[in-house]
């Protein structure tokens, strides 16, 4: 219901603020996530396994609930990540496209505001991300990479643990 006492410009300001929020979401957040992945492991090597670009993609997919938007976002973040690596463009792009699509579909069927659901979704999709990347690297690039199941599960749990507070922080943006 429209509040008649509310001035007209306040509605315009809300739209402007939301648009500004979109810029933050679509440009600044992934750039910061990528920069974190590029820069921080120089000083804390163990943080190299924190997949912030993936977590940012997951958050966008879970909150926006639009498969097309989510897969496009995942594709863009993945391609940027590829561009900063020495691998051919498309490896992370394909994997993150799929992750974004699946996460958006999950968000349309399950209440993803719940922290436990977010934790489990992040854990599952991180594991899928790593496994599918490994499959792609072997199948498309012919790389003989090892897939360490135990460490992958451990890193999936760690990433999911980081995802829950990170999503709450991103919710406020």
């Amino acid at each position, binding site marked *: 219901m429209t509040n008649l006492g509310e001035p007209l410009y306040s509605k315009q300001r809300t739209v402007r603020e939301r648009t500004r929020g979109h810029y933050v979401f679509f440009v600044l957040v992934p750039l910061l996530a990528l920069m974190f992945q590029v820069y921080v492991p120089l000083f804390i090597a163990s943080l190299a396994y924190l997949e912030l670009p993936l977590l940012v993609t997951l958050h966008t997919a879970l909150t926006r609930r639009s498969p097309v938007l989510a897969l496009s976002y995942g594709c863009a973040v993945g391609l940027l990540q590829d561009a900063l690596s020495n691998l051919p463009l498309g490896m*992370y792009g394909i994997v993150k496209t799929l992750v974004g699509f699946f996460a958006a579909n999950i968000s349309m069927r399950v209440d993803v505001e719940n922290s436990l659901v977010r934790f489990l979704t992040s854990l599952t999709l991180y594991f899928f991300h790593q496994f599918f990347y490994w499959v792609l690297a072997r199948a498309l690039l012919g790389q003989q990479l090892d897939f360490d199941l135990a460490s992958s599960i451990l890193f999936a749990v760690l990433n999911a643990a980081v995802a829950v507070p990170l999503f709450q922080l991103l919710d406020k943006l």
Partner: protein
Amino acid sequence: MQFFLKRYRDLTVLMLVLAIQILLLAWQVRTGQDVRLIRVWAVASVMPLARIVEFVRANTIGVVREYSQLIDVRSKNAGLEKELGRLKLENQFLKSELATADRARALAAFQSRTQSRTIAARLIGSATGSNSRVVYLDRGAAAGVKKGMAVVTPDGIVGKIVAAFPSASQMMIITDPAFAAGVVSQRTRVHGTLKGQANANCLVEYIQNEDDIKDGDWFFTSGDDRIFPKGMPVGQVRMTRHGSIFRQIQLVPSGMRNGLEEVLIVLEGIHQDIPEGIPAAQELHMLPRPPAEPAADPVKMLDFSTTGSSLTTDADQVIERYRRIGAAQGHTFGSGPAPNFNIGMPEAPRAAPAKPAAPGAPPPTTPTQPPR
């Protein structure tokens, strides 16, 4: 068709995006070419942020450390402890400054020592992907850096440039699984191929089981790969054993034993001989410059009678003898036909020999060829 696209719009877009990326990937793998534009954009958008953060970190970490240590000192109580903490802090800061200066000095010394033309660079970021060992350096194409250039430290090789962007460049570290370089054993001159294996050690491949390689042997670059100049230290053998066809050799790279913070990019490599001794570590002590001497005249330097030097070696005696033969015939060395070196001239008196000749020792031989 329209109903189908509307009904399965999400799946259609997904398939389309995936198909485009797979085609892009296939094109890159098949042709070996790269979509450079996207990489340039990505680096140009992320690396300036990394530069800013690194600048802030480098300039504030000392202040933060000082502050945190001051709190610690305050908690311990009293003005004396506070003073002690401040002095400790200052000492630590100066030590870190000294270490940085030492590293820079070692780099500068190596730069002046090596014949190759190099440029110093600093690490500003690492590439994405947990399996790759690729980092970013703060020197790019604008500084003359090109893809394929070698990257070294005074202790040895550390990697090669795999992409050069205007303001930064991407370096593949020696431990990356995709890294390879031609190497040669210092002791037996056996050639092999160095490969990274995504951990601290490297492998040396394609060396026959029969070849003589032992633990502790040093390997140097062979120059076969045309990336690394010949004669740069690579590392020391940690373990070697017989394999099915080739010998299995694990090598500890020497270039990264003092960390990887400042490096040298080889802009123009000059091949050098493989040194015989063990490569020196990075820590080096340098004496101050000697006091300035008056300008030396090369002709006067040969005239031992005027310089007052004592003639102690056979070579000095021979040079002096030829000089006097030339003077007796009015000959200027370096012009005209050679003088007659067979005329008899009295030998110059030998100044205070260090040890008398042993009885029965053969007489000193007289050279038959003039000096060149």
